[in-house]
């Protein structure tokens, strides 16, 4: 009960504070607010520069992708590291490496007639669905430059396709496709691709993640195209990590860290 009162006090206090701050916000949807239009007399705001110069600088139509993977690519790299750290943390917390008496707590699903029927229907449907989902995921990754999408979304969808396989056909089947050693390595390689592309431009003699430096390597007509291609490489790295870790989190949570049995 005491917690309820504490919660009430905290909620009322924080809410009042936030509303107090909201009261002198610019109107919702105003294009002239400092965030959108910049401070008066200070020239173009950062976001206006993003909108106007993304096309000349990187040849990428989707500004979100350009800002995400290039201008603020350092943020995105650490975002991928956050995902990787979450995966490692879950392994550290939950993974049971030594089975105590050789048997795990969960009985493998029953083989009754009814269960088999369900299995056939669900299994067949998912077998048809999963390739389509995976193809869509790859499309989302590849088309991130031109439409909404990119490494995270594609990675999550790709990871979800493996999760679906685990749900419909049992975790063992999914783990045959993507075993533990594989997905941990895949997650690490994903971040490594990202940071490696950044490091490559350092070797060329420019700053970290300066994709323009890769122009001679990629043989593009100008630096903008080099940025565009390097962003695609970076997105692929993100996809690797996100796919692997989403699946890893699922298998750990569903099997209490035993990576057997599952839901």
């Amino acid at each position, binding site marked *: 009960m005491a*917690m309820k009162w*504490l*919660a*009430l006090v*905290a*909620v009322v206090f*924080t*809410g009042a504070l*936030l*509303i107090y701050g*909201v*009261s002198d*916000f610019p*109107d*919702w*949807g*105003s*294009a002239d*607010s400092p*965030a*959108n*239009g*910049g401070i008066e*007399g*200070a*020239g*173009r705001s950062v*976001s*206006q520069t993003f*909108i*106007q*110069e*993304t096309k*000349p600088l990187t040849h990428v*139509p*989707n*500004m*979100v992708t350009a*800002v*995400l993977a290039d201008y*603020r690519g350092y*943020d*995105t790299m650490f*975002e991928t590291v*956050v*995902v990787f*750290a*979450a995966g490692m*943390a*879950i392994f550290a*917390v*939950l993974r049971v490496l030594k089975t105590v008496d050789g048997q795990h707590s969960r009985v493998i699903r029953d083989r009754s007639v009814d269960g088999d029927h369900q299995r056939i229907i669900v299994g067949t449907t998912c077998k048809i669905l999963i390739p389509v989902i995976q193809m869509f995921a790859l499309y989302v990754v590849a088309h991130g430059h*031109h*439409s*909404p999408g990119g490494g*995270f979304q594609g990675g999550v969808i790709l990871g979800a396709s493996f999760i679906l396989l685990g749900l419909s056909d049992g975790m063992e089947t999914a783990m045959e496709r993507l075993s533990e050693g594989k997905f941990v390595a895949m997650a690490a390689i994903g971040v490594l691709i990202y940071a490696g592309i950044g490091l490559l431009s350092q070797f060329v003699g420019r700053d970290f993640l300066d994709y323009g430096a890769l122009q001679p390597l990629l043989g593009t007509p100008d630096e903008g195209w080099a940025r565009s291609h390097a962003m695609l490489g970076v997105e692929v790295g993100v996809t690797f990590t996100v796919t692997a870790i989403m699946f890893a*989190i699922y298998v*750990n*949570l569903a099997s209490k*860290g035993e990576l057997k049995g599952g839901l």
Partner: protein
Amino acid sequence: MVDFIEIFVERVVHFIENVVQPHFNYWSYVVLMMIGLWGLIAKRNLIKKLIGLSIFQTAIILFYVSLGVKADATIPVFDYEAEKSKSAAVVLPAEPSEMGGKSDGKYKKIDPDHYANPLPHVLMLTAIVVGVATLGVALAVAQSIFKDFGTLEEHEILEKIKTGDYVKHD
């Protein structure tokens, strides 16, 4: 009395029109956030706490997305057709002409008010992914707690800690 009520209603309507309406999104983000915070503190079930935490985080994301909205803008993806068909280049007043970018040839200078602000979107992509990573770790810890205590209710866990009634590893 009737006058009083009328004045009161008038005041409320005035308040809603001038204070709440232009900021409606911001107000509702505060409401959602407070629901999340309430769930976070007052709920005793650990999973409920995590749902509250997620609501709290999505409310913050709603706030960020709201601040990047421009009323007459489209999504932040470059629109070839629209840009090609524009008759005149838009020149911002504060901008010197020599840093105008490549306005020659293929497309003209882009009107920044035509597109939504991409920066908050980028930030929130990061925040969403951070949110799901935190949720995953928290759920793993919750399962680990369940393994040791056999319950996910906070008061029962505290009770068991007091009595020492839980699985102790050496």
